[in-house]
């Protein structure tokens, strides 16, 4: 028998950062294909521009911190691909660039880079751009227009369901059209069925744990059912809330980010519930048409609390079961 000596870690999980990011890139590519179908080549150009800025900023930040850039790290690619999908297809390239730079240089690397960031980089980048370009960020073109790569001023804009809901009205789009993505909105967030398919794939691959998106969407649904924002009630109110804005896309890709979410399953469920309530409260009381990313950032700051609560809960459970607790070492009196 030969004895091989290896250094730790000795047990490895099948999922690595690379496979998780690879899965995310794959599903984001599908969303880009849909965006290309609805808005033409400008969608791809925005994506490529954002990815280029993100990757260059990431390499610069890594070099400044005195490390060697890792080609196998896909995280800037995911951030870069996600940012334009949260924005309208007519967004200026400058807004995308600012969002990408802020996401990587202000929200990711100052906290230690991949796996250490407190806030979701894409949410931070989008929020920063939303403050800078408020009007342009929420002016959406009608779908099925071929937007030119440069100079997308001559386009027909439409009213997004999120805007109508924020004013207390009921969007005039048919629910089937909305499910198929045939309404004005962020270029990656309108393809409802595709996003749901992406969520299913990511959950099956264990890239996104199902506990959190499910608890989040359920909470949002219950909230919309109990406290509808408009005169639409019941299922209609739930469907409109779920399909408007970036709620579905953000719920899958930003809220489901494994770095900025609690570690334990029960904490994830609690986090999803509280995030759902926070997002709905932000939607009701915010002056902005889309405040999802701000709600996510607020929740990201509270993740440590959920982690602490989860650990305490699990230690109580272990102690009751008599598992790996110090109590077990004490022999019981008979």
């Amino acid at each position, binding site marked *: 028998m030969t004895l091989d000596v290896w250094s730790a870690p000795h047990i490895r999980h099948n999922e690595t950062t690379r496979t998780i990011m690879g899965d995310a890139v794959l599903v984001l590519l599908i969303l880009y294909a849909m965006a290309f179908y609805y808005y033409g080549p400008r969608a791809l150009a925005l994506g490529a521009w954002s990815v280029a800025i993100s990757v260059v900023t990431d390499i610069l930040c890594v070099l400044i911190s005195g490390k060697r850039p890792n080609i196998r790290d896909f995280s800037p690619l995911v951030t870069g691909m996600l940012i334009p999908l949260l924005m309208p297809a007519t967004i200026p390239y*400058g*807004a995308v*660039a*600012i969002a990408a730079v802020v996401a990587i240089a*202000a929200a990711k690397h*100052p906290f230690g880079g991949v796996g250490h960031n407190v806030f979701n980089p894409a949410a931070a980048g989008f929020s*920063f751009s939303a*403050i*800078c370009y408020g009007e342009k960020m929420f002016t959406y073109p009608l779908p099925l227009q071929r937007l030119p790569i440069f100079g997308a001023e001559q386009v027909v804009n439409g009213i997004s369901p999120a805007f109508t809901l924020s004013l207390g009205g009921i969007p005039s789009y048919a629910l089937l059209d909305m499910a198929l993505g045939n309404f004005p909105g962020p270029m990656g967030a309108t393809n409802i069925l595709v996003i749901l398919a992406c969520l299913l794939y990511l959950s099956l691959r264990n890239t996104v744990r199902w506990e959190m998106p499910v608890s989040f969407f359920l909470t949002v649904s219950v909230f919309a059912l109990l406290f509808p924002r408009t005169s639409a009630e019941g299922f209609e109110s739930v469907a409109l809330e779920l399909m408007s804005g970036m709620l579905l896309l953000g719920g899958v890709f930003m809220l489901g980010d494994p770095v900025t979410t609690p570690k334990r399953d029960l904490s994830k469920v609690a986090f999803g519930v509280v995030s759902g309530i926070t997002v709905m409260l932000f939607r009701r009381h915010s002056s902005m048409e889309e405040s999802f990313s701000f709600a996510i950032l607020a929740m990201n700051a509270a993740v440590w609390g959920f982690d602490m609560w989860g650990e305490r809960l699990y230690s109580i459970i272990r102690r009751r079961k008599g598992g790996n607790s110090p109590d077990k070492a004490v022999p019981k009196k008979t």
Partner: protein
Amino acid sequence: MEIHQIRQFRKKHRIFNALLMRNPVLVMGLDLPFIIAAATSLKNAAAMAIVMLMIHVGTMLAGIATCRKLPYWLRMLVNACVSTVIMMVAQALVAGLFKGISNSLGMYLYLMAVNGMTIFQSSGLGRKAKIYPVVTGAVLSTLGFALVAAITGVIREYMGSGTLWGIPVYFPVKITALQLPFAGFIVVGFLLALSRLLNKLALSRMMREHARRNVRHAKIYIDSVETID
């Protein structure tokens, strides 16, 4: 590297020390609210620097007088009163120098009367404090504050509104969010990182110089020993 050598280096480079190594804003976090909320333009930064210089130096001088005669609790009160009186004079001066600065700085101009740096340094004066080192220290601390305010103001004004000292200057994208207080935190955070990097570089340079000097001394010693032999 021993602590006395670092102290020697710091004494030798007092201005560098005040601006970077022991900058009251970047290292101690004093007067951070003024930088974050009010340093949105170069003009604001200049006005704040002038007001701070007058208040800080004046209160420190008053502090020398009060620290010898008055008890600690009364000293604080008198210092605050002195800084408020100086602030009123400084505010009138600055309002004459820069048009509309009172509106631009708002309440922060008046709040400078009770700024953290002045309270912290004036309350720490001992009975044997001498005028020259205290005044020099106050001026250098104000210089540190002014530097951070100026850099933050330039970045936020140029990138946020495309102007410098109110004059339009070309910048491809306007990042209006930089004018908001949260962006002040981000800018100060990056300045802090930069100052740490510069500190690190300065210390490593000092250590290299020290090592080189040691080698030179060792060579001289070996040569002298060989000559004697």
